[in-house]
């Protein structure tokens, strides 16, 4: 995870210009780290379109939604490697996508270099700790230690 990045020259507000007198979306960075994160946001966005929207629909909308979600539900679900993989991929991509999104937002609203660094570090650290926590739980969860629970 990057510690310092190049300042964006312009604000990230929608740029003007283009066929209708206003443009759309974020100006594509010319290169380096910002171009890679720009590309990552879009590629992970496409994957999250399925992982995150699917997750939200399965857990909150379809088939009784959140009512049916409890320990047993998770135990049965994570008995399947497919769902563990899905959830871990969702955890990783959503965290990186989200923390990078926060970095972009922070770049717009936190101008002093020291404060910006501090705020970013809080999010990077939090993101890293949660990534480790989530990864450990997804891969080490074993419901058999609670006999009779499943």
């Amino acid at each position, binding site marked *: 995870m990057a510690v310092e990045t190049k300042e964006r020259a312009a604000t990230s507000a929608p740029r003007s210009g283009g066929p209708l007198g206003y443009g759309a979306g974020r100006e594509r960075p010319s290169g380096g780290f910002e171009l890679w994160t720009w590309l990552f946001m879009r590629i992970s966005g496409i994957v999250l379109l399925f992982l995150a929207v699917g997750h939200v629909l399965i857990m909150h909308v379809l088939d009784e939604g959140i*009512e049916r979600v409890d320990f047993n539900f998770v135990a049965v679900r994570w008995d399947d490697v497919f769902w563990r993989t899905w959830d871990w991929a969702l955890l990783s991509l959503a965290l990186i996508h989200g923390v990078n999104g926060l970095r972009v937002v922070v770049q717009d609203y936190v101008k002093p270099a020291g404060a910006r660094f501090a705020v970013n570090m809080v999010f990077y650290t939090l993101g890293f700790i949660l990534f480790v926590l989530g990864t450990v739980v997804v891969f080490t969860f074993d419901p058999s230690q609670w006999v009779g629970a499943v």
Partner: protein
Amino acid sequence: MAATGRTAGRVTLRGTLAANGGTHVAKRRSDVGTLYRGSPGQWSWIAHRITGVAIVLFLFIHIVDTAVVGWGPEAYNRVESVYQNWFVRLLELGLVAAVVYHALNGVKIMLFDFWPSTTRHMKGLSLATTGLFVIAMIPITWIIGKATLELVGWL
């Protein structure tokens, strides 16, 4: 940016004006006194940012509450019981709406980014994105809303 002016000063001036899309051009007389409504892109940009920040803040909490599953059924089911509350159900509906909006608008952004010629249909695509969002939210609101009303005993 095609700079066609002959003197350096002129090039800069024209370049600057063209680069911001001519927003410094005086408004038409008919614009005076009318409500500023912005462009569709401006509103979707704000909505994309707000939903994005809301989702990632929920994600931070959600990883922790899901991790409790590693502490056994009693602990996890106690955490999950937070959903037995009508206000949390409304937040849940808001979360689903935020994810759906962010996803649909994200597709629109990628369309503009990877196929810039589509920006000429920006108004139509913004309308389509908003329309799809509303259409998707009708059954979702019905389902979560019904469950919420059943929870508080009104249904």
